[in-house]
């Protein structure tokens, strides 16, 4: 999926033609990403350092990783990270671009850098900080195999609130009673893992959420308000999928639903309360 988002980005920027994107997408599965590109993506090496190692490979009979260690360009720990990442294969599209001569390493490094910045993918440390804060405030059962996924999801959801609703959310304790007369906004993500996410709130809170997200003057829970709450979840989940794709996990989003009095999706679930500054939202996640 990282390939897909990166391919979209390159296509939208007009950096290569749709036919070239198609060609790269078609053969990317057969390509193994080389350590040089992975190292550029992780920010461990510059394109010039990778070129230098490639040049040295012509003079000494050693592998890329060995030369990088010898030259002090990579630490053993960094090399292990790259070898682990190589198995995920999520940079195949970038490798194919270089193999086909549509871009050189330097151009790819530049485009990857811009792509990550514009997609907020370089805010991993910021996200890790968010996640660590959440970990200190929320404790989930260690027996639930989806615990890390829930922490990741809550981090992304809170960041979407900051980004799209212009407020600073705070985690508060969850309610275990679901009020049946409320609107429930839900969406499923399936693929390498399954996650259903839903949120609910009083009408006045959803209305404010809809107003802030859409930038429209909305005064009642009409079609535009309902649609705006659904789109907020859809876009937040889209960003979650992009972040997971960078970790090599592919997920598809299903159409979101906004239904009054609906039950939360899934059997067992994990719930958190969020104080948005304009009212309380209850967020519920269910893994499979």
């Amino acid at each position, binding site marked *: *999926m990282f*390939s*897909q*988002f990166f*391919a*979209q*980005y390159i*296509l*939208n920027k*007009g950096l290569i033609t*749709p036919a070239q*994107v*198609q060609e790269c*997408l*078609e053969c*990317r599965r057969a390509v193994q990403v080389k350590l040089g590109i992975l190292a550029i993506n992780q920010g461990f090496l510059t394109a010039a350092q990778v070129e230098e190692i490639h040049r040295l490979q012509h003079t000494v009979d050693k592998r890329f990783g060995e030369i990088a260690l010898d030259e002090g360009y990579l630490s053993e720990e960094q090399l292990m990270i790259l070898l682990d990442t190589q198995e995920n294969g999520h940079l195949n599209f970038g490798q194919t671009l270089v193999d086909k001569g549509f871009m050189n390493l330097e151009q790819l490094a530049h485009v990857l850098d811009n792509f990550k910045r514009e997609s907020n993918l370089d805010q991993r440390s910021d996200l890790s900080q968010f996640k660590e804060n959440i970990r200190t405030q929320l404790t989930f059962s260690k027996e639930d195999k989806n615990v890390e996924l829930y922490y990741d999801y809550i981090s992304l959801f809170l960041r979407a609130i900051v980004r799209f609703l212009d407020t600073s959310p705070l985690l508060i304790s969850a309610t275990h009673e679901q009020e049946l007369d409320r609107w429930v906004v839900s969406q499923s993500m399936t*693929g390498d893992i399954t996650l259903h996410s839903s949120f609910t709130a009083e009408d006045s809170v959803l209305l404010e959420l809809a107003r802030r997200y*859409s930038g*429209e003057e909305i005064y009642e829970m009409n*079609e*535009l308000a309902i*649609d*705006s709450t*659904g*789109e907020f979840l*859809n*876009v937040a*989940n*889209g960003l979650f*999928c*992009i972040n997971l794709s960078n970790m090599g996990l*592919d*997920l*598809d*989003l*299903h*159409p979101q639903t906004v239904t009054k009095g609906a039950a939360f999706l899934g059997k067992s679930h994990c719930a958190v309360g969020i104080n948005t500054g304009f009212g309380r939202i209850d967020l519920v996640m269910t893994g499979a």
Partner: protein
Amino acid sequence: MHNPLKILISDDSLLLRKKLREELEKIGCQVFEAKDGQEVVEAYSQCRPDGVFMDIVMPKVSGLDALKKIKEIDSTARVIMLSSTGTASNLLEALKLGAIDFIQKPYNSTQIVKAVNDIIRKES
């Protein structure tokens, strides 16, 4: 005086149709709307737009199936797909079916203007 560019937009989200209409009208386009994959194919036959902006995930008929049908009606149709996310196979399928661009939501004005320019360029 030039005729305005006719653009057909198809998305099941009222908000996205409203926002996209505003963006397109701001740059002088004449906008037609469809709410799902079935409506967009019918609307295409009726209004023969210069370009189409279409969501991938739509009720009744998906965006990809609608793209295929539109291409059967008019092989030169200029269609831009919109998506909040999707699979690489969706992107590949859209390109294979002849979509000229693929835009990730949430999009901005610059992406829409660029896409409209692409439509104009393909037309000339």
